[in-house]
């Protein structure tokens, strides 16, 4: 798809672009090749630096290595996220509802909690659970993730509620629904639907942040890479890191693509009022710049 910023190229420009593209790609490939050649000179790609993945030394089988990476490492990462995400969503929902309280002094604690936890690093909250509350590493990781992300989820839901047209609440009151009925059966379902892409994007962030457990000593994916490279020797670090980074990318990219797919679907079927900031951060499909590369 072409952009409105420039004419769709004619035959001459297209030929020029083709030549430019080929030259650009060649230069890029050349640079990458140079880098790889330099690395290869240092023996990065020698088989004895990668055999840890298929024929590891020290009487270990490849299955052992992969099990420690995938089952223990990735498993621990996912376990932290799977425990933290529903809890954070639930508490975030509570906070978001609390925030809509009609009495000002009732509302204030919720706003204060959201603003406070949004402004602190996740790592600090993990350390708080780990050092101050004396939790084991796993609980501390979940604690940090829950406290931080519940504030973010509450904020996303608030933006979702604010983005709904006023008529929705007015109509609900007009047909005689109570405040809580209006919120639960009219406003919230729409807000969740509108904000679904943001919620999933935040889930990716949550999953990414679980890697901070590495710093407080939780044995997640990154830690298992380090443990393996300490056990088998530092020459395997590149191979193990490549595998670990690929695992992260596969998991996160698929979640991101799910978010984008959902966004395309919802933007086609409904056109709710837009909260400029939230939508702008997610904007991809419609606009001056086309989403595809």
């Amino acid at each position, binding site marked *: 798809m072409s952009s409105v*910023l420039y004419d769709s190229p004619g035959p001459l420009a297209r030929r020029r672009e083709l030549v430019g593209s080929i030259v650009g790609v060649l230069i890029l490939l050349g640079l990458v090749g140079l880098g790889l050649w330099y690395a290869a000179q240092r023996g990065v790609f020698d088989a004895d630096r990668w055999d840890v993945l298929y024929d590891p030394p020290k009487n270990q089988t490849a299955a052992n290595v992969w099990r420690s990476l995938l089952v223990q490492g990735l498993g621990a990462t996912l376990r932290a996220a799977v425990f933290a995400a529903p809890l954070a969503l639930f508490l975030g929902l509570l906070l978001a509802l609390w925030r809509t309280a009609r009495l000002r002094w009732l509302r204030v604690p919720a706003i204060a909690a959201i603003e406070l936890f949004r402004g*602190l690093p996740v790592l*600090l909250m993990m350390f708080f659970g780990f*050092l101050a509350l004396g939790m084991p590493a796993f609980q501390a990781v979940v604690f940090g993730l829950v406290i931080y992300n519940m504030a973010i989820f509450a904020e996303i839901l608030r933006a979702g509620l604010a983005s709904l047209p006023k008529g929705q609440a007015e109509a609900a009151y007009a047909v005689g629904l109570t405040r809580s009925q209006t919120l639960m059966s009219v406003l919230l379902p729409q807000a969740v639907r509108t904000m679904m892409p943001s919620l999933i994007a935040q889930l990716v962030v949550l999953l990414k942040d679980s890697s901070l457990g590495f710093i407080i000593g939780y044995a997640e994916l990154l830690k298992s890479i380090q443990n393996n490279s300490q056990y088998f020797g530092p020459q395997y*670090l590149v191979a193990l890191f490549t595998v670990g980074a690929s695992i992260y990318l596969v998991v996160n990219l698929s979640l991101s693509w799910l978010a984008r797919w959902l966004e395309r679907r919802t933007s086609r079927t409904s056109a709710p009022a837009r909260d400029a900031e939230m939508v702008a951060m997610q904007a991809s499909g419609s606009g001056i710049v086309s989403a595809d590369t």
Partner: protein
Amino acid sequence: MDVIADNLPAYLQGFSLTLRLTLYAGGLALAIGLVLAAMRVSPLRPMRGFAATYVELLRNTPLTLVFFFIILVAPRFGVLLPLDFIGFAVVALTLYTAAFVCEAIRSGINSVGIGQAEAARAIGLTFGQTLNQVILPQAFRTVIPPLINVFIALAKNTSVAAGFGVVDLMGTGRRLATANPGGVTWVLVGVALGYLVITITLGAIAAQVERKVAFTR
């Protein structure tokens, strides 16, 4: 409570390092992110592809992984940067944040009404003129609040450096916590106050700017 007062100099040192990390990495990420955003909307397909790939990769990689790569893995490739841990932290934070800066700027460009670009094209402005004289001046205003949000996230993200040998605010808290096992809670409250000073200030600025920009559109 006394723990904070007793160790005020250490806290201030950590705070100033956190602030410096944020400023250095923020400035560099802004520059790289601007270039990436320009590449992302450019007519040349390889440039668009490169910028899009970079953003997509870095946005889906945990920051801890980037730190791990710069400090432990890159030297194995023969990339030996003549830097200390603070320098490594700035590099990692810059590479990571640049992707988010690019996205914020791109979304700002997207928020300008499509008719603006069409009108500019219709009176015969070139790509560069359209971008520089019509789109970017308008995008600039909407882009500031999301950009500040990126910098708030950066200020919080600098804490990851504490896990990789940097004694910033978080690292100071870690040291003090080991030194004062009895007052860990207060030690960490002190650290939290330091971060809140940065994030709440930036957040207030963002809200202010947002209010100012709001009525123009």
